[in-house]
């Protein structure tokens, strides 16, 4: 039995191909113009890696922003359920998934079976999403992936009060002009980010174990800041946190064709 999950977001697309018990291949790409194109490309790449053809896939489930427009998907399921499912398969003790993506942020509560219990999303405002970090990285003239490591070495983190990314930019620019240390700036940024995520998380409550998924999970500074605020040690994934959604899709696909009982 071979199944697949395809997650088409607004910035990236992922595909995961699974066999009976294991992941055969996975792929992440930047989106193409049009979700059908993104899905096709990422699936092709994943199939290539696994030395398979599309016909070999018994069932494919799509998820994400573009999920309803994937022609080779038999069905679509929300990225919320998929993230919960995928995270739970990877770490069965997980009960809260905090997904911080490029353009949105979700907090997902699941039960012992990985089933969705409750959730909350922010997909309107850049604050608390990867977008905020991007804007800040530009302002500091560093790479996105440098923010985390820099922040961990801060001695006097600055306090960024602005909620809006645009004003935050002004604030940070002012700090730079004052000669504030880059480490302290990076720490202020990761902290501001974590505060927003924390605020969202409070709405649905946080139960351990907690795992952080999505692109921002790779930012060690944000992760550390969030752990301090939530007062938990989050579980770390051994796979790329961006594929969790597609993985969930594949798992749901498997459930569809496994004999019942």
């Amino acid at each position: 039995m071979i199944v697949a999950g395809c997650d088409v977001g607004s910035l990236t697309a992922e595909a995961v191909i699974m066999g009976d018990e294991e992941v055969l291949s996975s792929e992440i790409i930047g989106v193409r113009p049009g979700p059908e194109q993104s899905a096709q490309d990422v699936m092709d790449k994943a199939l290539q890696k696994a030395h398979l053809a599309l016909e070999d896939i018994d069932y494919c489930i799509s998820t994400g922003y573009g999920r309803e427009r994937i022609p080779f998907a038999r069905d679509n399921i929300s990225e919320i359920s998929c993230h919960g499912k995928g995270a739970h398969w990877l770490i069965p003790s997980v009960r809260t998934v905090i997904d911080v993506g490029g353009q949105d942020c979700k907090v997902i509560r699941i039960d012992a079976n990985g089933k969705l219990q409750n959730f909350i999303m922010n997909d309107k405002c850049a604050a608390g999403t990867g977008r905020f970090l991007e804007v800040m990285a530009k302002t500091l003239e560093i790479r996105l992936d440098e923010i985390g490591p820099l922040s961990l070495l801060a001695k006097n983190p600055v306090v960024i009060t602005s909620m809006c990314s645009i004003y935050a930019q002004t604030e940070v620019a002012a700090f730079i002009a004052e000669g504030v240390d880059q480490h302290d700036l990076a720490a202020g940024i990761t902290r501001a980010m974590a505060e927003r995520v924390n605020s969202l998380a409070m709405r649905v409550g946080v139960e351990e174990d907690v795992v952080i998924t999505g692109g921002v999970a790779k930012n060690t500074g944000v992760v550390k800041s969030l752990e301090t605020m939530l007062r938990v040690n989050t579980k770390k994934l051994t796979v790329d946190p961006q594929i969790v959604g597609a993985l969930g899709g594949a798992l749901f696909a498997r459930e569809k064709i496994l004999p019942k009982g």
Partner: protein
Amino acid sequence: MELMEKLVEPAKTLSNSYVESWREKGGKVIGYSGTYIPEEIIYAAGILPYRIGGREATKVTIADMYFGPVICNFVKCVLENAADGRFDFLDGAIITYECDHMRRIFDAWRRAAKDGNARLPAFFQYYGLPHSRSEHATELLMTETQRLIKEMEKHFGVEVTEEGLRNAIKVYNKTRQLLRKLYELREKDEVPVTGTEALGIVVTSTVMPKDEYNKQLEKLLDELVKRKGITGRPRLMIVGSVNDDIELVKLMEDLGAVVVADSLCYGARCFWNLVEENGDPLQTIVTRYWEHIPCPRMYGEYSRRYSFVRDIARSGKVDGVILENIRFCDLHGTDNTLYGRDLEAEGIPTLRLERQYGPLADSGRLRTRVQAFLERIGG
């Protein structure tokens, strides 16, 4: 289903063929906002009461000239409709103090007209409401209603008689009873009418002559009793901010659910309570409107609202309740927090949905959330 279409079609636009033919025959139309204005007094004057809605607006650029950034988009769409001429058929309009957003339509519409950006109906009134119930509040409301009647009589050269009011009560109570019957059908295990259709039927009740409406709805109910019902889908209830847009319900039902109940002001709350037919008709009319299932604008009445929501959820055997509010709607947004807490405590799953009304409506966001919710309650 021709009868059904006839009763849902007027809900998709503002003006409709009934309004047009009413006017062609020389009839007058008075628009009103919300559920607290006693329609019967307008009907008794021989004038068509028309509930002002926000649908059809595709932008809010003129409204933004008069309203700040944190104003409810439904209210902005109402003003935009006025600016775009879609309310030109109104001979009058009565704006109620139902909420902070709605009451400022009274100021903004007049100003927009002064600036030449909208046509102001020749008869334009404000209907003030108290916020909590008491003997003196009812007295105040009686005085306010009598003032409104006098203004209407003066302007339109009509008379509102006791006889006229009694007759109006009969007609309106009939509408209410028919709609109650419709909602009873929705409680069945096999639901013969979708939520989208039901909302359409309710919205239509607010924009056409009640006599004709009652006839049509009665016929439709006879058909619906025999119609094959929907089963096997998650049953939802919707609670929250004003919604006259059937697309919102369609969005939810397209995802595989069926909406079987609500506590909405284009919904159960606008027809649930009848007017007492014995006693002074103006008194009983005002009392009914004042004391009907309250909008969250009535302070200290949460438990009354909650009992209604919970009872309806139970009798509808709903699998989940969608608590929606338009962005910036503090009244429903705050109530929804309490509803969520109390419903979940009783084992009824809920979904909080903060949304935008009207143009630029965020259907993608809504679909993701509702779909996830259905996955959650699906089992």
